[in-house]
């Protein structure tokens, strides 16, 4: 099976060839339907990796391939969510969810005809993350956690094949975070999409991912990768087992070393 997302020997510097490298000789391959997590010290190039993989930045050296094709313009099959919810304050929650459908083809040209169907889809999605009947509210009438859920829904509404999450839960309290882990876990299980998650939370990475990649400090490379073998579906309880703790410890040691 060939990789769905493959970066091969990628180097990148912001501001052209003269700038300091953000990532250097970075190689990573994520299989179709796989859940990959990327951890590493702050500023090591994790967000850069996301931008390279989605065609928002282009590498100085090396190749980026997604779904078998070289990436030379922004991807159209990706859904993205960031640490900040980045919702549009002048649109209701539901209208925010419909935004991708106003842009991505073929939905874009079918939006006026199939609007009812799309609204129903958005409402189902909201219900699936525990936001039933909140669609008419404006984002600023929602709590931070609710906004983050909405942002997740927006990343999923056009049924992307690839979901890119850049520290999406970092600003949330521990309980909401765990709740959303389960939401993501279930979405991944149902839709079988490929997910790349950047996080600083090692428990989060180990709980959700099939494989965890550890990056070096800047310029970032992959230092280590760890396959997580816990059977799916995983329960939150698994995070309290000694085996789980051992893996978290092992990853932590890698990062501590990377920081030096």
């Amino acid at each position, binding site marked *: 099976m060939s990789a769905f997302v493959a970066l091969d020997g990628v180097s990148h510097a912001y501001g052209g060839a003269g700038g300091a490298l953000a990532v250097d000789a970075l190689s990573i391959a994520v299989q179709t339907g796989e859940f990959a997590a990327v951890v590493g010290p702050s500023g090591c190039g994790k967000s850069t990796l996301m931008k390279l993989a989605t065609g928002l930045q282009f590498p100085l050296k090396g190749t980026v391939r997604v779904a078998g094709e070289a990436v030379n313009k922004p*991807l159209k099959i990706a859904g993205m969510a960031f640490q900040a919810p980045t919702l549009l304050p002048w649109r209701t929650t539901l209208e925010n969810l419909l*935004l991708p459908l106003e*842009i991505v083809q073929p939905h874009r040209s079918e939006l006026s005809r199939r609007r009812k169907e799309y609204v129903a889809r958005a409402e189902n999605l909201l219900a699936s993350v525990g936001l039933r009947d909140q669609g008419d509210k404006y984002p600023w009438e929602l709590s931070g956690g609710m906004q983050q859920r909405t942002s997740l829904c*927006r990343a999923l509404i056009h049924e992307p094949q690839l979901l890119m999450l850049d520290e999406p839960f970092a600003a949330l309290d521990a309980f909401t975070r765990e709740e959303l882990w389960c939401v993501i876990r279930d979405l991944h299980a149902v839709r079988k999409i490929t997910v790349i998650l950047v996080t600083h939370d090692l428990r989060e990475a180990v709980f959700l991912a099939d494989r965890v990649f550890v990056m070096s400090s800047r310029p970032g490379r992959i230092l280590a990768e760890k396959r997580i073998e816990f059977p799916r579906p995983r329960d939150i309880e698994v995070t309290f087992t000694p085996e789980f703790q051992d893996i978290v410890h092992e990853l932590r040691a890698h990062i501590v070393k990377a920081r030096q």
Partner: protein
Amino acid sequence: MNRTAIIVRLSPWLFTIGLLILWEAAVHALHIPTFFLPPPTAVAYAFVEFAGPLARNSWITLETTMIGFALAVGFGLLLGLLVGWSRTIYAGLYPLMIGFNAIPKVAVVPILVLWFGIGFVPAVFTAFLISFFPIVVNVATGLATIEPELEDVLKALGASKLDIMRKVGIPRTLPYFFGSLKIAITLAFVGSVISESVASNYGIGNLMLQAQAQFQVPLIFAGLVALAIEGIAMYAAMAILERRMTGWAQRSGFAQS
């Protein structure tokens, strides 16, 4: 409504009335001559006596201001979108605009008179020239400060630049735009009055100039009052428009408290 709320509500009126009483008292107590500083009662009297000319000229000033302002809105919006759209256009136009804005507009009036003769047209142009700049700057700022993450979200969906402009750029620029209208309308008003008092036979600016020549000091002050009323009314209209159009951007309690 409790007591504090009532007092807050009334305070603009109380302050105005207080100022007028103080003024009246000072003029009488210090025996200030009317041709130097007329008391409010004399100004009020002039206001009634010259109600006809005041109303006629106020109307002309209002018309001049509104036409110049409308031009400024159209042109300023267009230029602002252009400047916000492209870094090259921004880099090319910005120094020009700064230089242009630095010129005192009263210095431009003679040129306008040379081109268009005295009267209505130079006043409209002065109002336009003085008021379009804040609109351009605000619209361009709104576009330039789109959150990069949001841009990434849209780009990763395959959005074109035009899409990003339509879905995010323009809506998020609206509060900046409507905010700038409040400044622009006041400036437009300044522009038309300047031009009227330098080069016109109509308008409140001209009326005040004539009153000055005839030493009708209370009428000068009545002209000022007319200007103040017009200015407040236009500002209020823009503030209401702003509130109406961009309610989502005005949810902070800060300005309301």
